[in-house]
């Protein structure tokens, strides 16, 4: 075979492997949209579930997931971004900072069900928060931190050192250089990392299983110490725990969850590409 044909064949095979990534994604989204579209209605989004969850809507689960994501953001953003600024801009390479980095890498590798058990032991029982939004959000926040920290650190390190030097040469403090030059430049990357982290939190079931999620609670939570339904767990429940559940409702719930997560993903992509086009260094 001539080397020309070897190349043709090689590229064709490589192209097929690339396509293989797209196919499952299209199938997953396609199936859920086709099967779930019929369930989507104004009532499905805004009504309480009724008749053993076989009728009505998923409003409390949707609100619960939004509240959990918000709670996670409130805890994870300040700690994650603050910690990243310290690690990337201030911390010297000492055993302390190496320990912190090791902790972050390990946090990222912990299975989500272990986070759930930790949340149960730490927040629900030991700190006596009970099964509550607070406990769930704290658990999700810990799980989200490594994602936020690693992407945000990358964003900060991508800003040329030169800008820090120039800021110092003009009499600025280290913090002023970070505040006025480095952070604005790194912000799109940081926002992307935050959204990706929150997106993961919004879709997880295991960490909320023991810490916040209610099986069936047809009302909105009243306080951070209240339980709530949440979309991923609700989906799990109606798919496996309730006999005779109409398939339509299962797919409809999956579609809402998917739409929520994909729209966050889209937002992250738009923000990133918008700022990347404007960046000139």
């Amino acid at each position, binding site marked *: 075979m001539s080397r020309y044909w070897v190349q043709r064949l090689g590229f064709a095979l490589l192209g097929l492997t690339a396509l293989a990534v797209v196919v499952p994604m299209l199938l997953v989204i396609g199936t859920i949209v086709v099967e779930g579209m019929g369930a989507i209605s104004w009532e499905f989004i805004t009504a309480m579930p009724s008749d053993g969850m076989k009728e009505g809507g998923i409003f409390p689960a949707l609100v619960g997931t939004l509240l959990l994501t918000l709670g996670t953001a409130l805890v994870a953003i300040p700690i994650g971004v603050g910690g990243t600024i310290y690690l990337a801009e201030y911390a010297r390479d000492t055993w302390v900072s190496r320990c912190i980095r090791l902790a972050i890498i390990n946090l990222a590798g912990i299975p989500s069900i272990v986070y759930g058990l930790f949340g149960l032991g730490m927040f629900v029982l030991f700190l006596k928060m009970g099964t509550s939004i607070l406990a769930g959000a704290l658990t999700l926040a810990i799980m989200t931190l490594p994602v936020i920290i690693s992407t945000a650190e990358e964003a900060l390190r991508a800003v040329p050192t*030169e800008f820090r030097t*120039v*800021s110092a040469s*003009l009499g*600025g*403090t280290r913090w*002023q250089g970070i505040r*006025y030059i480095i952070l604005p430049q790194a912000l799109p990357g940081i926002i992307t990392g935050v959204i990706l982290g929150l997106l993961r939190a919004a879709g997880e079931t295991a960490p909320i299983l023991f810490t916040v999620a209610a099986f069936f609670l047809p009302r909105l939570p009243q306080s951070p110490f209240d339980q709530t339904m949440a979309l991923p767990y609700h989906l799990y429940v109606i798919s496996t725990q309730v006999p005779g559940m109409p398939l339509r409702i299962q797919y409809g719930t999956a579609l809402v969850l998917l739409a929520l997560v994909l729209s966050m993903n889209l937002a992250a992509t738009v923000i990133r590409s918008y700022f990347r086009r404007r960046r000139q260094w």
Partner: protein
Amino acid sequence: MEKIQVNHLDFYYGSHLALSDISIPIREHQITALIGPSGCGKSTFLRCLNRMNDTIRGTRVTGEVLLDGQDIYNRNTGVFELRKRVGMVFQRPNPFPQSIFSNVAFGPRVLGLGNRNELAHIVEESLRGAVLWDEVKDKLHEDAFSLSLGQQQRLCIARAIAVKPEVILMDEPCSALDPIATQHIEELMRALKADYTIVIVTHNMQQAARVSDFTGFFWMGKLVEFDVTKSMFTRPSQKLTEDYITGRAG
């Protein structure tokens, strides 16, 4: 009159002695050029004058650097105050990724000089000082990267003089520029001399000869010769200096 007097300065990177026993007077309202081959320590020396080497770990300085008679390495000298008085222009034009106005206003802003109205005045004055005003006055809020490289370097000079320093350190400010832009910067330096004391590091000997009043020749971490530029380029007292400026060494 000496603006800066350096006495017996040694500089270490870790245990490596990068500069040894440098003593040099920097005269007020004069341009002092530092020449020498790459790696001879001239840039390191320049960065000792505003303590920019402080940010590099494992470096150490002995000896004294007197700015108006006060040792800048003295514990009582604030490093931020020092850098306000001794500004710096870098090798590559490096404006912040912001508007032209914000670039020039950065220094005054972080130092808390001037309110909003005064800021506009400082920006105009600094851009005029850097002979850039006429080219940018109608697009102050455009991105600094829209300027040509030569204009960007003059913007960096405007940014440096916006905090009203007394000394300006220039680290090979023309090495990234074409001959026309270089000429602009050299003219600018001659004009700035009236208000500032300038120290320039250059590996371009013609530039040192054209623009400076005094020249120091560095070789392997030592100051080989320091003299009035004219004398050094016509009658160097050291054989090494003569070899270097005539292109036989380095």
